[in-house]
Each structure stands twice: as C-alpha cells, then as structure tokens.
C-alpha cells in the first residue's frame, strides 16, 4: 500500500515536472534569453579575452531573466492549482517539479559552456589578457562553468524562492534588480571587497580592472573558481530547500536538518573558494595597450 502511494507520488512528480519543463521552455523571456545567448555565440568571442568576458551574456539572459521566468511560473502554478481545487498536487511536489524545470535553462547554459570552451581554445585570449603566469586552462574552464553555465540554474532557483516566499506584487523584479546591484558592487571593481566577493553568487575572477598608471591593465583576482563553482552548487541546493520549506502542510524537520547541513558545507566551500587558488591579486606584466598577439 505504502509502495503504491510512493509510486503514485513519483509518477505525479514526473508528469508535473515534464509539464513545468515545457512551460519553462515556452516562456517568452526564456526564449529571448536563449536567443540572445545564441546570438552572442554567433557573433563570436571577444578579440582580447576570448570567451572569458562573454559570460555576462548568459548570466544576464539566462540567470537574471530566469529569476523572472521562474517567479512567473510559480505564480501561475499556484493559480492553476487553486483553480483546480484541493488535492491535485501538494505544494512540495509542485516546488520539486519547478526545480526540475531548471533543466531547461541549464541545458542552454551547458551549450554555452561547450561553445565557450571551444572558443577559448580556438581563439585564445591575448597575452595581455587572462589567464597568464601560473594560472592555466583549468582555471579558465572553471570560470566559464561557474559564471556562464551555473547562473542558468541559480537564477531560476532564486526565482523559485522569491515566488514561494515573497507575495507582494513586483517582488521578482525588485529581487532581480537587487541581485544585479549587489553583484555589480561585489564583482571585483572595489578593491576592499575583492577578497570577500566570492560570497556572492556571481563575481569576476579576472578583468581589465587596471592599476595605477594603466587603467585597463588585466588582473587576476584572488580566489579559486574551482571551489567557487562547487560552492554555487551548494547555494542552489540551499535555494531548493528554502523553497520547499514554504510548504506548511508537509513535515519540515528533515528539511531543516538538511538545510543546516548544506549551509555548513556551503560556508566551508565559500571559505575554500576565498582562501584557495590565487591568493594575491596578479597583475599582467604586459600593459593593456600592448598589441602582442
């Protein structure tokens, strides 16, 4: 009997998840975001930094847009559920189904990552850009995955949390704007914040931040992008758990325990992302105006 109920629950989750994936794939903002990402790939990588600087496009078009898309899907899912009457599907099942729908943007993010790795090798960055010195390709691949592919999951999951917990009108757009605000402030441009910036779900690891006398000089900032992307996976897990916690009809004890456990793991991973890898800001020895190929 219990086995049958479990099977039914799994079956309901699978069918709702497929339904939510289709809805995500048909959402106009997602389609626009995916097209913008594809258009950027068609235009090609940056001549100076190759694909390293293009990660801003999927981060904005799949990640920030994803906050808005998912919040919209949560609202319409709740409306459809209440219109259909009680007992159609529990909130927890629908939340899990919506979380599963992030497969759709993540597949686009993975496609971007594949293109970015290819572009990085096909048209490598100039010597005056990054990476340079002891920093190699694995650093670059981790940056491309963490900043290009993972926002496609992280943004929608943040939208899921917002859709579940914030009920006032416009909460998703305000959240998206605040996300961009704190991300810009913590992206590495402000020197005193550089060491702690990896706390944020998106930040640069290299760029033409400049030095005294050369305002466009390329720098590699502190931190390990390899640990950082594992930390981002932990943040996504926390997001799903927080969204699931909203369901007051289901047992929360297990979720709270899981949340505490993943929270501790995330804190450790964040500390590793801060303290591992490059530990002093590296300045490219070549000036920014150098045309060395």
């Amino acid at each position, binding site marked *: 009997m219990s086995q049958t109920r479990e099977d039914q629950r799994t079956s309901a989750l699978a069918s709702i998840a497929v339904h939510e994936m289709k809805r995500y794939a048909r959402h106009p903002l997602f389609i626009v975001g995916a097209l913008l990402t594809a258009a950027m790939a068609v235009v090609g990588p940056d001549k100076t930094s190759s694909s390293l600087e293009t990660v801003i496009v999927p981060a904005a078009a799949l990640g920030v847009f994803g906050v808005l898309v998912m919040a919209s899907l949560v609202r319409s899912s709740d409306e459809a559920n209440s219109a259909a009457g009680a007992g159609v599907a529990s909130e927890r099942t629908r939340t899990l189904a919506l979380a599963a729908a992030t497969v759709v943007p993540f597949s686009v993010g993975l496609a971007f990552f594949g293109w970015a790795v290819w572009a990085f090798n096909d048209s490598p960055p100039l010597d005056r850009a990054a990476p340079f010195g002891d920093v190699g390709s694995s650093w670059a691949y981790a940056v491309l995955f963490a900043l290009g592919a993972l926002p496609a999951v992280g943004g929608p999951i943040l939208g899921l949390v917002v859709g579940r917990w914030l009920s*006032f009108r416009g909460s998703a757009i305000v959240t998206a704007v605040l996300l961009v605000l704190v991300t810009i402030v913590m992206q590495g441009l402000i020197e005193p914040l550089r060491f702690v910036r990896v706390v944020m779900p998106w930040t640069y690891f290299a760029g033409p931040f400049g030095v005294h006398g050369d305002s466009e000089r390329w720098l590699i900032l502190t931190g390990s992008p390899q640990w950082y992307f594992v930390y981002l996976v932990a943040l996504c897990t926390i997001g799903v758990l927080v969204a699931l916690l909203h369901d007051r009809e289901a047992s929360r004890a297990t979720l709270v325990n899981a949340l505490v456990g993943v929270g501790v793991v995330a804190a450790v991973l964040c500390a590793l992302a801060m303290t591992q890898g490059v530990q002093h800001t590296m300045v490219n020895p070549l000036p920014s105006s150098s045309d060395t190929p």
Partner: protein
Amino acid sequence: MIRHAARATPWLMFGVTAAVLAVLLRVVAEWPYRMWPLEGIAVGLLAATAAWPFDEPAAAVVDSLPRGLAWRTTARTVGVIALVSWWLLLVAMTRTAYFGHATAVAGQGCAAVLTAIAFVSWRRSRGSATPAHALAPATVAAATFLALARPMDDQLPLFPYAEGGPWTPSAYVWSGLAIAAVIVLFRVLGEGGRSTRRSRRTPEPGFDTSSQELSPSPRERVGVTLRLRSLARALVCTVAVMLPIAAAGPAAAQRLDIERGSVQDTFDDDLYLDLCGITTTTTVTERWSLKTYPDGSQVFHDVRTFRSADPRLPVEKGAATAFYAADGSWRVVGKPIQLISPDGGTVLLDAGWISFDADGDVSTVRGPHPSVGVDLADYYCPQ
C-alpha cells in the same frame, strides 16, 4: 478619484521601488564610471513599477461600469506621478554623477514611464486585464540586459556612458519614444476609453442592444461627459510628465562646443613647496570635459587624483562640476576635494555646493567646505 488611486496603487511595491531607486542612484553617484549599468537598470525598474497600477484584475467587472478606461487610467496615474517626482528628485540630488547629463537621465525615466503607461493602456483597451504582469518583467529584463551587456551601443543608444557617449542620439530616441507614447495614449483613451472586450462580449439575456445603439440612455450621456473630462485630466497629467522631457531636448540642443580629455602627468609640485617647504613630485590622473555655451557660460566636469611621490603626503581626490556663468560668477557642485591621509582615512572633505560671485567671494555654501578660509598647511603638510 483619489480614493480610486489610493486603492489601485500598489503602495508597498512603490515604496520598495522608491527605496531601491535611491540606493541605485546613490551607488551610481559614488562610482559613476564603474557602476553606470545601474543607471539603465534604475530606468527599467521605474518604468516597470509605473506600469503595475494600470493592471485591472477585475476588468470583467469594471469594464461594464460607467467610468471608462480614460477616467480610471487618469486616476491610476496619481501614484505614478508621485513616483516620477521621486525619480526627478533623486536625479537632481545626484546630478553630478551623470557626466553633465542629469537632464537627459531624468528624461530617460520620464520617457520610459510614458512608454510603459501607453503600452499597458493599449493592452487594456484591447481586453487584456493584467498586461503589466508581462510588461514589468520584460522591461526590467530588457533594461538589465541592455545596461549590462550593452550589445548595440551605437545602433540603439538607450543608456549612453560617460562624457563621450552618444547622448544626443539617445535624447532623440527617448524623445521619439515619449512622443509615440503620447500619441498612443491619446488614441487609446480617446477612442471611447472603454475596453473593447466589453463591446465584443455576448449580451446578457434580455439586454436590449438595438435600443441602446439607436438612442443613448441618460446614463450613457453622463458617461460620455465623464470620459471627456477624464481625457482633459489625462492630458494635464501627461503634459506634467512630459515637461522634463521637453526640457531635456533644448538642453541637449543648445550645447555647441565640447572638449574632453584625460591627463596623466608627473610634475614638480609647488603647492607642497609653498605650504610645507617640501620638494616633491606629484602624479595627477584626470578625466575632464568642458562645455562652452553660446552665451559664454561653461560647464567643467573633472574627476582627478593627485598622488605625491613623498609617502608622508596625503592623496587628494576630486570629482566635481563647475558651472561658470556669463556674468563671471561660478559655482562648484560635487566633491571637489577629498584629502586622504597616508595612514588611511579622510582628513578633509569638501562636498555639496559652493558658489562665488564675479569678484571671487563666496556667496553660497551648502554642505561641508572646511577648506574655505583655513590654513591648508594643517591638512596637507605632515604633522
């Protein structure tokens, strides 16, 4: 009308947006070169929020009431005007951050709001009950993408950057959008001001449509009068919102001569020789622009850093705009002097507004200007 506006406006969201706008523009004012994308995002957030009050979830009910779409749209504009006023105030308070184009930035917000209202009103008139649900996220998403990725800066200069940005083409784009929005608003609100959804709906059983078409009832005549009055009010509100844009156009057009430059130079610093008797060299890093108007007045914007070779001496930073009037008076707005001790910490900060008459005497001071009338050696020379 006020009661209608009070209930239709999502005040919580307006309050949150007002606070977020203040933070966004404050951050831009602090680091204009680095945080500039937040300016475009603020414009998008303003337009998205302004669209919300025009959603009418109970459209099926209110469309059948005597007060038409024009009256309701006008009523719902009250909160938006308050929000736009807040935007203009914020831009005025941070006007030194916009590379001398504060009017254009204010105009961007006004034009974006007008465009959003026009679109939402048009969708409402076509039967969509909650068009802002789609428009608001799309507006924020578009503004975010355009401000961050800046994919078509030359072709579509919506949010120009720094002194050398395409501000004049941008002013034309926003003015065009605003004019198109006003035309759409007049067409939508003037075509009866009612949702066409109602007219397409099948009449209720027993409702005599033929008699209504042949001779309008007294209630309908009252409705027409109300709509005309509403239209007049809508006109007044629209003009009120359009005024800043009208001001933005001439402000951009009357500029004749603009010079810009950036300097990085090391020189023997006489200031320290005179003040402290110290011989040293100082490196200045500076970006400036000078606008000269036909009447002889000038606007000089300057962001600079003086760093001395002697480690005992402070670093001087400045970010300010000087307005020189044709009569010889001038005023300096911004943060002209910030003196940072070699050990860290600000030891001297001039910020705000200071104006001088034609003889060079201080006439108005707003904000701290401790450097005026003191012995600068106390601040510049090592203790």
